[in-house]
């Protein structure tokens, strides 16, 4: 496989991977936005839940933006920031669900 073919293949893989991650993040962001409307707006516990859902949205936006940047520059997606971001989102979702209960 030539260098050009490998590069093109890498770009295609990046685009596919990026599309999947973005779709997943959009689902997470949409779910958290929906959850934002379901919490009681007065009270310290519910305020924390609201804040954490908002943080989930923001991290999702940051990750979508990162994927978009990688795709538009036709460079490979680095795994470390994505894994760190996913772990952070997971932590925030678990913490917000814990606080909601």
């Amino acid at each position: 496989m030539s260098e050009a073919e490998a590069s093109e293949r890498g770009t295609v893989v990046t685009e596919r991977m990026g599309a999947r991650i973005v779709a997943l993040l959009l689902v997470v962001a949409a779910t958290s936005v929906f959850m934002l409307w379901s919490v009681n707006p007065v009270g310290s516990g519910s305020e924390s839940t609201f804040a954490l859902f908002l943080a989930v949205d923001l991290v999702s936006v940051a990750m979508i933006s990162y994927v978009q940047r990688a795709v538009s520059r036709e460079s490979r997606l680095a795994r470390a920031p994505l894994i760190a971001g996913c772990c952070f989102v997971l932590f925030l979702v678990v913490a917000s669900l814990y606080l909601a209960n």
Partner: protein
Amino acid sequence: MADNTSEGAPREEKEGEERDGMVARVLAWFDSRLGLSYQMLRPAPQYSINPFYWLGALATVAFVIQGVTGGIMMLYYVPDPTQAYATTQYIFQQVSYGTFLETIHLYTAYAMIMLAFMHLMRGYFVSVHKKPRELMWVTGMVMGFVTLGFGFTGYLLPWTIVSKSATDVGIGMMGALPQPVASFLTFLVVGSGSDVGELLRFYDLHVFVLPAVLLVLLVVKMYMLEAHGVSEPTTGTASLPAKKRRLIPIFPDVSFYLIELAALFGSAVILVSVIFPLNLPPEYSAALAGQYVAQPDWYFLWIYQILKVSAFEEAGLPVAISVVTLIFVALVVLPFIDRGKVRSIRDRKVYVTLGAIFVAEVAVLALWGYLTPGQVIPDETAGLVLGGTALLVTLGSVVAYKAVFGGLRSVARSRGSARAQAPSTVSTGRVSSRSAAVWTSATFVCLLTAGAFLIGDSIDEIIALRLGAPSALQSLAVSLSGLALVTLGTAFLLYRLDLGSGLIKRRVRAFEVGWRER
């Protein structure tokens, strides 16, 4: 991509051939309709895609968040001493997500001040104040003062015992300024002297005057940024690979990068606000104020701690105010003092060491002020702590310069040439430059930690001795012995660094244990 867009035309016809993804197609649609990729703003070099280049932008994001949260709070807040606390309490208890709003507003204010300080110090260390960016630096300094003004004026608004007492301390500090300046500033922020006038003036300054001034200064600074572009790395751009020097358009690449930074910054502030939610302190009353030890907020603590040194009490207060004013003036006119063309950290030892001392002293004073509220600091203790900090940082700077720019680099260079000449002679068990770097760093960290601990301990023992505790003499002897060992260890480290670089002038065989001759 930069080449495609640098000519200033929207990419109306180009997207179809390169972009296939759904997100990219949506973006291209908006781009072609709104002309987002039209080069209104100068493209940024790839090397600027680094959070340290965008600290000012993050401070602006914090300012925007404060504008939004402050605007919502303005709907409920009444700037009158009889209602200020009650309306703030109403926001906390009755308004939807009110505590969250208040907490975010406060923490983004703290973040804005911290980011502005980091932006200042980063700029200082990498010499962004040099030609042609002198006026950008001066404008940035004025913006920094406005940011501190935001903190000072906003702190009073809840009318709590903490905020009113701290503001009174600040206003009291203004009295030590020269008479015309003190009169003008007091008139500006206090007016007739009544609580009603004071709160109203603080509110007006916080909500209308300072934001307007900051926005004007921001526009001026952005204009200059467009004219000069982002500063180059201190080592110049010639040594950078072509990929790093490539220009990238503001939209979409830099814009998306800024969105990432802003979103991560927002989520970090939110997380901190969840972990440490704000609690409203009791309402201010003259009776309660007598029992409360007034203390300014953390960003003014270092100045307050200077004023608490006994030499600066009462008659010496103008001297202390003059010293603090001189520091600020020196920072503002820095571009006209430090006019050399050299920007590299390597060749600016004096300025870099002075900057490191300033940062260390500010941190030590702020922490010290936090730990000793309302206490007058004896002159000897102040001299020991501030002098010790300066000495430690200077020592650290000398060692760091030798380690980073001196000894090890020379070792690596000489080993590189030795390897090129006779590869077989190199693998004789000598330490490699990487292990030497690890060894040096570890020794240096241990020495710094031990030195800081022992200086603090010695000061404690000296204070105990002065208070009449003879048993402290023994502990003092132990601490001083430890300090002597640390000094010896530092000399050992410096000697070996000089030995590695081949710059050694006088041999001390006892310090050369384990070192093999080339």
